[in-house]
Structure formats: C-alpha cells, structure tokens
C-alpha cells in the first residue's frame, strides 16, 4: 500500500506496517477513516489523469478558444463597419429630407437652337425642330407630332452605363395651353412592333440617352408657341428618369425648320 498521510495530523506512514495506528498522534485508522483516505487517494489519481487528459486534448481546447476569438473579432468588425455606415448615411438622409422640405432652388438660363449646353461632364445641343411627316407615325385627329433632334457628347457612349439621361431630362412647354409635355417613346408612339423597331433605328427616344437622337412630342397644334425645357441635376435618388434632383433649367424657344427626311439626311 505504501506510505499514506494520517487524516488527523498529516504524518506520513505505512498504515499496514504500523498496525493502522498513527505513530505520531495515535489515531486508530478505522474502516471509515480508511475509506476516507482511500477516497482522497482516488481523487488525487483522478486529478492526475485529468491533467494528463488536458494535455492530450489541448489542441481541441485551443481550437475552441480560437473559434470563439474569431467570432468575437468578426462581430467587432461588423459592429464597427455598420456603425461607420450608419453614421455616414444618416447625415446624407437628413440633408435629402431637408432638400425635400425646402423650396427648390433652380437656376434658370435661356439658350437657342444650335447652342451648345454644358451639363458637366456632358454637352448637349438641339440641332433642329420640325414637324415629322413620317408614314410610320399613326395618324391622329386631335394630335400632331413635333420632333426635335439632339446630339450629346461627354461620357456618353453606348457601351458605358452612365449617360446624360442619368442627370437630365427634357419636356416641351406649350405656352398657350400652359402645359408641359414629356417626349414619347417609340413604344408609346406606335402600335406595331415593326414600326417601333423602325423608330428605334431612326434614333427616336424619350430620353437623352443617345449620342444622336430625336425626341418626339405630341402637340395639339404645331402652329403654337413652344419652348423646350431642359432640367438638370447632379445625381439621381432613384432609378427612374425623373428621380434626378433638379438644380438647373435651360429654356430654348422652338423654331421649326423644314421637314427632315425619314432616312435622317
């Protein structure tokens, strides 16, 4: 059995050799005491085994700890990024809200047909206005057509996503009726797919999204006084063509020229 400690005085001695009596304090080691001593011995052995096991499973423990640290780090990065994002977004939204609530500040300027208008980083020029006598446009009793040709330049390439229509749009002011009219798209102008495609190939558009294009307006009479209104802003809040926050307006009086041929010559 070897030497053991006396449960009373702690003296180490061989229980069997000393006849189960402590030579120091004289305690008689009874059954219960023996059991207690045995349990203490077992606990000591268990602790030693655990210590060995901990050494054995140390890597698993390390991994668990590492995973936890990583989780906390990721959470921390999320919290910081979100915090920065929110703190940048909120002042922007507050200024947008204020812009909506206050009256629009739009600077107005007048221009002429053929004059180059600069809407940075683009330039825009309306070359001519005419009454199109094209067979592919449906004949309507109450409405006439009025077409305006334009050319644009700048970052306006067909293979580039951004173009002038992202920051500017056009409408026609019928001064007599005091009505502002939007240009019609090829789809709105014609009922058939064939004519729609033909108009599309003739660069008919409702937006300033081409290098060279033609805007077609439906008017009550071509003999009235009209002016072209160009509205420009810096950025769009949404995805629609009228989502640009406007801060500039150009007005061009319409002077009709001779009919342009269908082929554009």
């Amino acid at each position, binding site marked *: 059995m070897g030497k053991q400690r006396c449960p009373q005085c702690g003296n180490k001695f061989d229980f069997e050799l000393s006849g189960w009596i402590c030579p120091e304090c004289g305690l008689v080691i009874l059954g219960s005491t023996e059991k207690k001593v045995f349990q203490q011995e077992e606990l000591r052995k268990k602790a030693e085994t655990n210590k060995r096991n901990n050494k054995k499973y140390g890597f698993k423990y390390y991994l668990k700890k590492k995973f936890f640290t990583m989780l*906390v780090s990721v*959470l921390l990065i999320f919290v910081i990024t979100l915090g920065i994002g929110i703190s940048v977004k909120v002042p922007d939204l507050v200024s947008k809200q204020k812009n909506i609530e206050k009256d629009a500040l*739009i600077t107005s300027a007048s221009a002429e047909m053929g004059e180059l208008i600069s809407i940075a980083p683009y330039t825009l020029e309306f070359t001519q206005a005419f009454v199109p006598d094209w067979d592919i446009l449906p004949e309507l009793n109450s409405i006439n057509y009025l077409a305006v040709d334009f050319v644009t330049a700048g970052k306006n390439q067909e293979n580039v996503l951004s173009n002038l229509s992202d920051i500017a749009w056009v409408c026609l002011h019928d001064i007599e009726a005091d009505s502002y009219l*939007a240009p019609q798209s090829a789809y709105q102008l014609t009922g058939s797919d064939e004519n729609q495609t033909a108009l599309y190939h003739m660069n008919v558009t409702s937006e300033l999204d081409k290098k060279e294009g033609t805007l077609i307006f439906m008017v009550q009479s071509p003999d009235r006084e009209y002016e072209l209104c160009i509205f420009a802003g810096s950025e769009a*809040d949404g995805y629609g063509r009228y*989502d640009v926050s*406007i801060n500039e307006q150009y007005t061009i009086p319409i002077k009709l020229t001779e009919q342009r041929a269908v082929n554009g010559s």
Partner: protein
Amino acid sequence: MKQGIKKSQRIFIWIIGILFVLEIIVLFFVSEWEGSLKREEPKLHIESAQWIPPDENIKNDFGEIFVSIKNRSVKPKCNIPNLLFMNSDDQNAFGETLMPNRYYDSLSAEGAVDYSSSEMIPPGATVDVHYRLTEQDARELDAMIRANDTVYVRLSGYISENKTYYKLQMQQEEEK
C-alpha cells in the same frame, strides 16, 4: 486577477452583441427612411383658386374652378392631380373630387391609350389648371355655399404641401 479579466471579457462581448443588435435595428429604420424618401411624391402648392361661374350662353356649362398649382420640389409631378372641394377644413372632411382638363383628354378619348402621365408639372413651375364642374358638382358646390358660405379646396393628401386647405373665392383666395 484572472477572474477579473474573464469578467471584463464577458462584459465586452455582451456590449458588442447588444451594439450589433441595436445597429441592425437602426439599419432597418434607416433603409425604411431611405425608401420613403425615394418614393416621396413632389409637393404641390396651390397658389390661387378661383370659382368661375357658368356662362349662361353656353349650354351645359356648370362653371369651373381655376387653380394655379406650383411645384416647389426638385422633382416633376407627372399627371395633373385631381382637386377636392369641401365645406370644412377638417382633415377627415368628405370632399367632392374634380378631374382636371388634361392636355391629352381628346387623344385619350380617341384611342384606348391613356397619355395623361405625359403631362407634367416640372420643378419650380406654376401651371394653371381648369377643373370643369359637372351638373352634380355644381349642385354640391351650391349646397356647400348655402350651408357654410365657405368652400375649401385642396389637392390629394400625399401631394399637397402640408395638406393645406384654401378658401375658394370668387375674386381672391386667401390661405388658411
């Protein structure tokens, strides 16, 4: 000492967790706000509103309400809005709706396509709009004048700036 460090670590993790949840909630409200700003309709303001009595020489003329509407926002309003007239300035007051005389009315009548959204009120522009009264509208207006002597007009709530009501008058309007 070691226990103290463990306790502060636990507090730190709790703080990060709570911050994360709070930021997610704030982010939800910020996106809702951003969405509502994108959907925001331009605010229109009635500059003047005048009742024009029917012309006795014209058959089936029941008069009209002539309104100057200004778009004070930075975006255009596509489609000329309807007008409401009522005998009370209470927000829940029942009003009669009038349709505007639109530029493309004759064209829309000619074909099946509705072109009314091609007519717009650009930012900063003021347009004069005629709201023609039908026989029933004229009766309702007459009843309102007899009952209260005052008729209020306004545009639909979501586009009317501050939901303001205007007193409709024969010569001059006054803002309430």
